[in-house]
C-alpha cells in the first residue's frame, strides 16, 4: 500500500517534471515575443519623442526657407561621404550590426519634415549617383562614348537617325553625353602633342583617356563602369540595384543609361550569368534570370517590370520593337556584352 503510493508518486514525478519543462518552454516563447514587442515599442517611443522634438524645433525656426535646402545639401554630402566610407565600415563589422545601428540613428535625427526627408533622401540618392557619374565620369564617359563612336563608326548615320527619333529630352541627353566628352578629347589631344592625331583609333583614344584617370577608381554605382571589371564585392550589386529602382522614380526599369544590365536578378537576387544577362524576355527591358522567368510563366506570366503578359517567344536582340529608342538601347547593350 505504502510502496504502491510511492511508486505512483515516482511515476508521477517525471510526468510532472516534463509538464514543468513544457510550461517553462512556453513561458520562454512568450517572453521572447514580449521582449520583441517591447523592443518595437521602445523604438516607437524613441521615434515619437524625436517627432515631438522635431515639431518643436520647426515651430521655433519659423519659416526659414533656406534651411531645408541646406539640410538637403548636408544630406547629400553625407550620403556621398557614406558612400566613400562604407566599404571600410562594411569590412570592419560584416556580421555584427551594432555599429550600423548607431549609424542609422544620425540621419533620422536630421531636422526635416517627413516628406521632405523622403524626397531629400531620394534626391540625394539620384544626385549623388549622377554627380558621381558626371564628376568622376568626366573622363570615364569620355572614354566610353569615344569607344562607342570609334567602334560603331560605320553606322554613325544610323545612330543619328535613331537619335532623331528619340524624344526631345532623350535627344538632349544623348547629345550631352555624345558631345561633351568629344570636346574633352580634343583638349586632351591638343595638350598632349606627342599623340598623333591621325592615329585616332578607339584603343588609342581610350588609353590616352585612361592614363590621367588612373588616380580614380570606378565607383560601384558608376553608370559607365565597364562590365568586364570584376565585382568589388557582391554587396555592391545590391545597393546599386536599389538605387536604380527608387532613384529613377520607378518609371522605367532599364532606363536611361545603356550600361544598366543588373548584376543580379531582381526577383531572386542571384547573380545573372552570361545567358541570363543576354536574355531579354520583355520589350520593356526588364531583365531577370531564366529560372525566375520560367517560374513566372508557370504562374501568371506577367512581366514584373511592366505587368504586361509575356508573349511566349522571347524577344531577340535584333527584333523590331516599338520606338527607335529600344532598338538603339539594345544595340548598345549588345555591344557592351560582346566587348566584355
Amino acid at each position, binding site marked *: 500500500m505504502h510502496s504502491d503510493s510511492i511508486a505512483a508518486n515516482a511515476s508521477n514525478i517525471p510526468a510532472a517534471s516534463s509538464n514543468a519543462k513544457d510550461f517553462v518552454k512556453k513561458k520562454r516563447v512568450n517572453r521572447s515575443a514580449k521582449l520583441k514587442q517591447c523592443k518595437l515599442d521602445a523604438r516607437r517611443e524613441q521615434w515619437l519623442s524625436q517627432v515631438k522634438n522635431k515639431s518643436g524645433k520647426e515651430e521655433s525656426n519659423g519659416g526659414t526657407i533656406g534651411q531645408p535646402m541646406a539640410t538637403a545639401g548636408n544630406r547629400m554630402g553625407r550620403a556621398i561621404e557614406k558612400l566613400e566610407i562604407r566599404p571600410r565600415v562594411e569590412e570592419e563589422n560584416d556580421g555584427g550590426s551594432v555599429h550600423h545601428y548607431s549609424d542609422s540613428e544620425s540621419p533620422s535625427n536630421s531636422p526635416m519634415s517627413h*516628406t521632405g526627408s523622403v524626397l531629400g*533622401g531620394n534626391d540625394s540618392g539620384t544626385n549623388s549617383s549622377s554627380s558621381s557619374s558626371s564628376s568622376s565620369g568626366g573622363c570615364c564617359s569620355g572614354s566610353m562614348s569615344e569607344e562607342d563612336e570609334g567602334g560603331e563608326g560605320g553606322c554613325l548615320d544610323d545612330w543619328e537617325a535613331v537619335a532623331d527619333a528619340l524624344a526631345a529630352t532623350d535627344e538632349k541627353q544623348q547629345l550631352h553625353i555624345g558631345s561633351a566628352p568629344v570636346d574633352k578629347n580634343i583638349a586632351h589631344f591638343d595638350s598632349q602633342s606627342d599623340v598623333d592625331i591621325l592615329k585616332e583609333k578607339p584603343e588609342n583614344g581610350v588609353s590616352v583617356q585612361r592614363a590621367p584617370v588612373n588616380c580614380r577608381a570606378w565607383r560601384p554605382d558608376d553608370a559607365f563602369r565597364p562590365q568586364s571589371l570584376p565585382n568589388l564585392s557582391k554587396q555592391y550589386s545590391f*545597393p546599386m540595384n536599389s538605387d536604380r529602382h527608387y532613384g529613377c522614380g520607378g518609371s522605367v526599369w532599364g532606363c536611361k543609361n545603356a550600361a544598366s544590365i543588373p548584376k543580379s536578378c*531582381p*526577383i531572386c537576387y542571384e547573380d545573372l550569368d552570361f545567358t541570363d544577362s543576354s536574355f531579354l524576355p520583355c520589350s520593356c527591358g526588364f531583365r531577370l534570370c531564366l529560372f*525566375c522567368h520560367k517560374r513566372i510563366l508557370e504562374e501568371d506570366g*506577367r512581366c514584373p517590370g511592366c505587368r504586361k503578359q509575356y508573349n511566349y517567344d522571347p524577344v531577340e536582340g535584333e527584333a523590331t520593337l516599338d520606338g527607335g529608342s529600344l532598338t538603339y538601347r539594345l544595340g548598345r547593350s549588345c555591344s557592351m556584352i560582346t566587348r566584355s
Partner: protein
Amino acid sequence: MQASRARLFKEYKEVQREKSADPDIQLVCDDSNIFKWNALIKGPSETPFEGGVFQLAFSVPEQYPLQPPQVRFLTKIFHPNVHFKTGEICLDILKNAWSPAWTLQSVCRAIIALMAHPEPDSPLNCDSGNLLRSGDIRGYQSMARMYTRLAAMPKKG
C-alpha cells in the same frame, strides 16, 4: 519554397545594411521565422497621420516573390482603405497588381503613399470613405487626426 527563403534572407541583409536609407521605415524580421516581419512606419507629413508611428505586420507566403505578402495594420488607423477592426489594407499592389520585383521595403513605401493619398472609391472603412466622398475633408481629417492621437502617438499625462 527555398527560393522565397533565399530572397527573404537577402532582403533581410539588405535591410540591415540600408537601415539609414529610409528613416521613415523600420523593418524587423521575426527572430525565429523569416516569413513573419514587423514594420514601423511614420505617418507622412501634411496628413492627419503626421506624428504617428504605425506598426504593420507582414505575413509572407511560401511562394513569396510571386505572391504578395499579406500586410495589415496593427495600430488602429482611420483611413478609407484600411479596415478599422482588422487592419486589413486594400491596396492594388498587395492584390492583383503585385509584381515580384517589389520588396517588403517598397511595400512599406507604397503604404506610406496610400496614407497620404486615400482612395475613397474602394473603401474598407465606409465611414471614412463616405466622409471623403461627400467632400467633408475637414471631417475626415479631424477624425483621422483624433485616431492618430489616440492610437499612434504617445499618451500624454
